């Protein structure tokens, strides 16, 4: 299913083998094998409920009932030393509504980089992160009084605070306007290029897929395809990633159907 020959020689940022996750009664991820290369932006795409958030939670180490192998930055996922090296944005904005934007960021900064000696550095980081998500004019507003998109930007700013080697962003641009989305994607590319950081970004929006270096297309807890946007388009003979994705979904559905009818007939 996967093309390992395109794997860069250095160790990937994330390496999964036979990764399975059970949530409640359901097996949400089924025996996934994939890698996320270092220093690149990998897009995680797929329909609602296919398991994108679950996969990201497994990578960050907040998901229970994970089986199989999952190596993140050379350690097993969830390893304590990874906690300073990964930035994570949950799908629902997770910030304190009864604190201002700046107070939110100062608190999380104090957790990442504690101590009085680091106060100046923290202040700089907080100011920069607020500017990165374009909230400077709202820095002293309570998070609870912000609009939906503004709140999710506060949540994103928290992940931009330190200098994480791996950024796991769960739908960071949902509900944002085109200008801001373009700016944020530019920021993601800058982070990848200048810091050599790895980004794993999930999205519903297929035009964002074109901005990724590599794509993982998911459907119903499985990985449908894995490759560069160009490779996917070429492989499916389509013009856009969206068409490529639809093509692959139809293909998979058809394959599933023939398998089922085969089972029926042998019964």
């Amino acid at each position: 299913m996967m093309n390992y020959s395109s794997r860069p020689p250095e160790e990937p940022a994330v390496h999964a083998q036979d990764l399975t996750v059970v949530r409640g009664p359901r097996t949400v991820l089924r025996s996934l094998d994939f890698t996320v290369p270092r220093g690149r932006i990998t897009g995680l795409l797929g329909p609602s409920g296919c398991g994108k958030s679950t996969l990201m939670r497994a990578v960050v180490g907040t998901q229970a009932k994970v089986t199989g192998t999952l190596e993140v930055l050379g350690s097993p996922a969830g390893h304590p030393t990874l906690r300073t090296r990964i930035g994570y944005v949950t799908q629902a904005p997770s910030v304190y509504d009864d604190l201002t934007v700046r107070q939110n960021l100062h608190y999380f900064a104090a957790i990442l980089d504690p101590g009085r000696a680091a106060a100046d550095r923290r202040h700089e980081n907080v100011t920069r992160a607020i500017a990165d998500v374009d909230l400077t004019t709202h820095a002293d507003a309570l998070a609870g009084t912000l609009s939906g998109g503004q709140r999710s930007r506060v949540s994103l700013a928290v992940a931009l605070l330190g200098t994480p080697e791996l950024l796991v962003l769960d739908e960071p641009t949902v509900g944002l306007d085109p200008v801001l989305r373009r700016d944020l994607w530019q920021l993601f590319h800058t982070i990848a290029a200048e810091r050599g950081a790895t980004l794993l970004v999930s999205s519903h929006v297929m035009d964002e897929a074109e901005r990724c270096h590599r794509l993982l297309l998911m459907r119903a807890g499985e990985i449908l395809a894995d490759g560069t946007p160009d490779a996917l388009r070429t492989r499916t003979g389509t013009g856009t990633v969206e068409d490529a994705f639809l093509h692959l979904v139809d293909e998979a559905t058809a394959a599933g159907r023939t398998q089922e009818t085969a089972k029926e007939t042998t019964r």
Partner: protein
Amino acid sequence: MSTTHPTTAAPTATAAPAPPRALNLSRTTATAARVLRQLRHDPRTIALMVLIPCVMLLLLRYVFDGSARVFDTIGASLLGIFPLITMFLVTSIATLRERTSGTLERLLAMPLGKGDLIAGYALAFGALAIVQSVLATGLAVWFLGLDVTGSPWLLLLVALLDALLGTALGLFVSAFAASEFQAVQFMPAVIFPQLLLCGLFTPRPNMHPVLEAISDALPMSYAVDGMNEVLRHTDMTAAFVRDVLIVAGCALLVLTLGAATLKRRTP
């Protein structure tokens, strides 16, 4: 946890070269400052927490207008009970909100020790309890004529330990509440039986032996006993020391149990 593979995402990476595990003072104080800052944006809650005990004591003083002796006993007991109830409620709701807003997941994916988080909460609510108890004790002793034989400082010490116990219980039960409705219902479940059996309504030796035995096992009984020791004796009695140690021990035990309910990995 069902991790089958040895190199799997190990949830409890105890064998790892773990980062500093013990309490981190800066992270603890940052957390306490954050909790207090959140409360500062909610002045009504603070006002209610501080004023209600005073109003109740005032009311009680004139309910027992003719029998000062009764006011002494009940007043002293209430000085121990108020901090416990208030901190129980505030902590259980605050922790529940932390769980449901996703900020707990985010914090636990960061290099924050569970101990730091819990100590931070205990510190913040402890500070608030001091303000509450100083006002209530001051009002009772100097304005309402509560007749304490011992030192009012000892009353304050017991009140502080009670607040800690309330924080611990609130933190612990919030793990079992899925909503604010349930969290509030834990108050009658956890607090009322203790209230009935702590000796507030009738001296514990006068109860049915079974109930007396149960009351011997409930921490609030010792909080009230401790208060009454201060009421009657000029110096620290052995019984007082025992009561204080039991309340403190219970608080620590329940805090530890509460820490165990904070899971880095959730389903």
